[in-house]
Every structure is written in C-alpha cells, then in structure tokens.
C-alpha cells in the first residue's frame, strides 16, 4: 500500500500514478473553485492549513481506508493560499484492483476530509 499526501501552494497538476501490477481501477476526484460562494460571484478562494496535522490526519485516514477497502495506493494533493476560479483545490487518485473499493475510498475520504482535516477556506476574493 502506498499513500502520499502533499499540501502546497503550487498549482495542482494531476499526474497519472505509476502503473502498479494488479491495479485495474483508477478513480480520481478533483475539487475545483467555482465562480461563486454563498451566492456571490468570486474570483478565488483562499485556503489555509494546519499543515503538519492536516498531513498526518490525511495520511492516517488513508491508511485506514485503503486497508479497509484493499486499495493499492492513494495520492492526495491539497492546494493552499489563493486558488483562482476554475483551478483545483484538491486532487485525489486511488488505485485498486477493482472499481468498487476505489470509489468507496474516494467518497469516504472526501467525507472525512470535510469533517476532520484542519484545512479551511478562510477568504473569498470577490469578482
């Protein structure tokens, strides 16, 4: 099992994970900044992280989820700082033997991220 977590202010460039023997399913999720927040047009969101804890919590969570669903690897990138509209705030790639566990890890991770990972949208830049 391979878990990688990266929190950075750099633009997220989704890259295909290295091919792993036995993997038949690759599921990804990209969360992008929409042009409005709470009904108001915006040009960007600003994200802040308690970085060491966010990385640790995500890593622990992914180890738990990947083991429970027998996934081969999970790669997570979360951007912080200013993220302009249309750009990715988060990108996740899950590799598994079959699609059902890959989908399960993706959905469960996103749910838990939004409960337990210390990352915040702290501001919006209005349009």
């Amino acid at each position, binding site marked *: 099992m391979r878990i990688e977590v990266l929190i950075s202010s750099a633009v997220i460039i989704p890259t295909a994970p290295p091919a792993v023997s036995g993997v038949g399913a690759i599921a990804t999720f990209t969360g992008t900044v929409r042009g409005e927040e709470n009904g108001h047009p915006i040009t960007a969101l600003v994200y802040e992280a308690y970085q*060491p*804890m966010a990385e640790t919590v995500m890593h622990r969570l992914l180890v738990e989820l990947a083991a429970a669903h027998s996934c081969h690897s999970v790669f997570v990138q979360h951007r912080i700082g200013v993220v302009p509209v249309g750009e990715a705030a988060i990108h996740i790639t899950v590799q598994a033997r079959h699609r059902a566990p890959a989908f399960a890890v993706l959905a469960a991770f*996103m749910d838990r991220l*939004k409960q337990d990972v*210390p990352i*915040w949208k*702290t501001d919006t830049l209005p349009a």
Partner: protein
Amino acid sequence: MTVLYFAHARRITGVSQEEIPADVPLSSGDFWEKLLQRHPALAALRTSSRLARCNDFLPADALIGPTDEIALIPPVSGG
C-alpha cells in the same frame, strides 16, 4: 502552554499563536476558561471547535500539560 489559532480563531484573536502560562495540567474545560478570559469573542467558536495536540484531536478527558502545544481547530472546510 502554547496555543495555535487558525482561520476564524486567528481572526478573532489577532495572533496565530501565543503563550498561556499554566503551572498545572488543565482539563479541556479549564483550558477553555483561560482562553475565554483572554479572548471573550472565542466563545462563538467554543461548541464548534476542537482542540488538538501532536497532530491529533484531544480526547474530551485529556489533561493539557504546562508545556503542551495546543491547536484550536475551528470547523474545517477543506476540499
């Protein structure tokens, strides 16, 4: 003890971290009392926020030692 403030908590306190003197271990409740004496406006975050130490959320019954680094974690909104 050192307290770290993020996001809305930092906007309320105006600082990202500060030292709070304590001679003995504190319960979470006593710790919050100390925070609220300094920053009464943090009361708005009290029920929704959690405390963390060593990159993990604190159990409700944990004691906070005089040299601990404690992070105040307001409701998260990543992704």
